[in-house]
């Protein structure tokens, strides 16, 4: 009697649609972009990359871009800065350890201060998931999410896509829902704490790719398989590798483990990408890594430096993609629509 609870269907309050992004130049999530928008950014990245630097640096001449970094960064910060400068923009770098953030200034107040100083767009790296949304709502400026906590890193997703396309679909000009049909991308390692994984698993299936997440339970909960269409979980690394054309290796994010204990010996035995594994299970796969790489942990030095590695290409692609994204940030409003 008691075990048969009658399920009544109750109308319940709807979940309101997201008001984000407020600014058409913002890039908070890869989901802010339509596939046409992705195509435009990829095409523009190539154009800007090939453009005469002296012509290119007039595009955003004397426009002001702020880089607001609450976490340390080598690749993302430098490539955003080089990208903005390559277009002629002035950049200002604010990092949490040498600013009033140390004195307790909030993200909102820091953002409003930068806006008053003339910043026309803010590139934000922050250790809290969702920080870019807060900053955009409070400043209404174009905000470029350069990594928010464990959430997203949309320009990384785009530069990874550019790298994957260069290897697997050379010469294509635009992308659509079938561009990566038949392609499987394994994302391996600390998925739980990875914003790179989230941006990629949201973006790549929209182009037809399959994403296989691979890692131990502590770093990859079962429910990750429900994170979106085209996403599956495979615990066995060699099985995942065997079906993949791209192997994206991730670092264990020691700074976000929050007391979690990981047996590194066991981890490397199961999940380290070695030359032997690569040769046996994925001799043609492209090896990606968003960096920073920890040689000898998630991958060996031989693999990182080996012929299948596209890790340094990713870095290079980062500048091209970020030029296109920074340009979009400062021109989308003028063009009166969102990309």
């Amino acid at each position, binding site marked *: 009697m008691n075990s048969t609870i009658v399920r*009544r269907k*109750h109308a*319940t*309050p709807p979940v309101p649609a*997201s008001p984000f992004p407020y600014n058409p130049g913002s890039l908070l999530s890869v989901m802010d972009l339509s596939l046409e928008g992705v195509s435009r950014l990829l095409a523009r990245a190539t154009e800007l990359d090939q453009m005469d630097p002296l012509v290119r640096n007039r595009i955003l001449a004397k426009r002001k871009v702020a880089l607001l970094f609450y976490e340390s960064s080598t690749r993302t910060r430098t490539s955003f800065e080089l990208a903005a400068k390559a277009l002629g923009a002035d950049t200002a770098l604010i990092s949490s350890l040498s600013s009033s953030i140390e004195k307790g200034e909030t993200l909102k107040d820091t953002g409003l201060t930068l806006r008053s100083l003339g910043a026309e767009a803010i590139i934000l790296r922050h250790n809290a*998931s969702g920080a870019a*949304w807060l900053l955009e709502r409070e400043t209404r400026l174009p905000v470029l999410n350069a990594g928010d906590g464990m*959430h997203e890193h949309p320009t990384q997703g785009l530069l990874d896509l550019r790298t994957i396309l260069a290897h697997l679909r050379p010469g294509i000009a635009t992308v659509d829902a079938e561009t990566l049909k038949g392609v499987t991308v394994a994302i391996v390692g600390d998925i739980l704490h990875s914003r790179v994984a989230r941006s990629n698993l949201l973006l790549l299936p929209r182009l037809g790719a399959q994403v296989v997440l691979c890692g131990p339970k502590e770093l990859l909960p079962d*429910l990750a398989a429900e994170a979106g269409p085209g996403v599956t979980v495979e615990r066995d690394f060699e099985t995942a590798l065997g079906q993949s054309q791209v192997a994206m290796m991730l670092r264990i994010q020691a700074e976000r483990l929050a007391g979690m204990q990981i047996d590194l010996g066991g981890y490397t035995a199961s999940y380290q990408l070695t030359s032997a594994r690569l040769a046996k299970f994925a001799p043609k796969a492209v090896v990606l890594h968003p960096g920073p790489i920890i040689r000898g942990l998630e991958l060996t030095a031989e693999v990182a430096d080996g012929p299948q590695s596209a890790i340094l290409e990713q870095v290079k692609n980062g500048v091209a993609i970020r030029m296109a994204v920074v340009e979009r940030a400062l021109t989308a409003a003028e063009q009166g629509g969102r990309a």
Partner: protein
Amino acid sequence: MTALVIRGGHLIDPAAGVDAQKDILLQDGHVAEIAGPGKLKGANGAEALDATGLVVAPGLIDMHVHLREPGQTHKETIATGTAAAAVGGFTAVAAMPNTTPVNDSAETTRWMQAPERGGVVRVFPIAAATRGSKGEAINDYAALKAAGAAAVSDDGHPILKEGVMREALAAAARVGLSIIQHAEDTRMTQTNGTSASMNLGTVSFKLGLRGMAAEAESAIVERDIRLVMELREQRPHLHVAHVSTAATLNAVRQARRNGLRVTCEVAPHHFLLTEEHVGCYDTNAKMNPPLRAAADRDAMIEGILDGVVDAIATDHAPHAIHEKEVEFDRAPNGILGLETALGLSLHWLHAEWKMPLGRVLSLLSAQPAAVLGLKGRGTLAVGSFADVVVFDPKTEWVYRAAESKSKSRNSPFDGWTMQGKVWWTISEGRIAYRAQN
């Protein structure tokens, strides 16, 4: 003291079994007389309120609020919190002890009830179950009860240690108080001082936020019920605060079948919203326990409709605007509730889900009064306290957090349509709130 007559209204007093047109005379802070329309004998010269077309009901009782006084008066004071209560039709609120300092003393318990605090409705302090709400040493419950504490709780924190909880249940039973447990196994929800900030599930994974497992709630409730069972000779009363998961509700249901004195409350946000309402990191959708999965929310609806839920309680938890305008994982837990509980309950429970009006009102008055053992409240039987709410059950209106009487604005229900306009809230015979027109 002046007398007050409410004429022409429809009296709904579930505890007294009244659901009819009645006039009612309030005198000296109590209900003096109830009679058919125009039949009151002692009403001569009393101020009269015309309640034609309106419902007259026992004043609402919110058994779970945070009034932030003493010590956190930038968020709320007893004066502003009770003003918001009166707007919402509440004539009594039970104030949780996580103030600064924690209310773990008879002095603070008395201080909160003093007229100087400016409360416009009755405040029943819930005193801390343990010293400083640290979950280690239990307080002197007899002294707290003598000072007016309606129950004891470490709300905001669980009483985690089994030995302490057992001792607390037994000690509270000896003096006739209930233990209100904030059920959260913090060993599952906190790591190295980092607290999870929403429900654990697909949404938390997608948002990159640390999640609180539903089991962190039900595990403590199941343990506590086991303790109540072990102590059943002493008749302890366990009340589970802000139930948010299906598993917890099932545990309470089972305990009741076993004849144990276990009661529970559900907050409007837990029977209306889900983890999806966190949206893009809306800190007004952050509270503890968090918004849960749709299946849990549906279980709260079922539990209210089938009667296992004893009370609707708001967990009114004001926070200053600047405290909520921060990164999601750094924002404090809690939302406003006093001004929206009746409007949401009438809109959803009554109008949408067809719960009889008397049952909805009972969950908001008679039943919480019974849980807390408040004599003469939650009913309008002759001789009871003159705690009354008079409202139009049909009128729809839109809630604007910016116009709240609370000091704070942190409501996820800003802009929502409410049903049921409160015309008068009367606390012990005095009009605590009167609609502007």
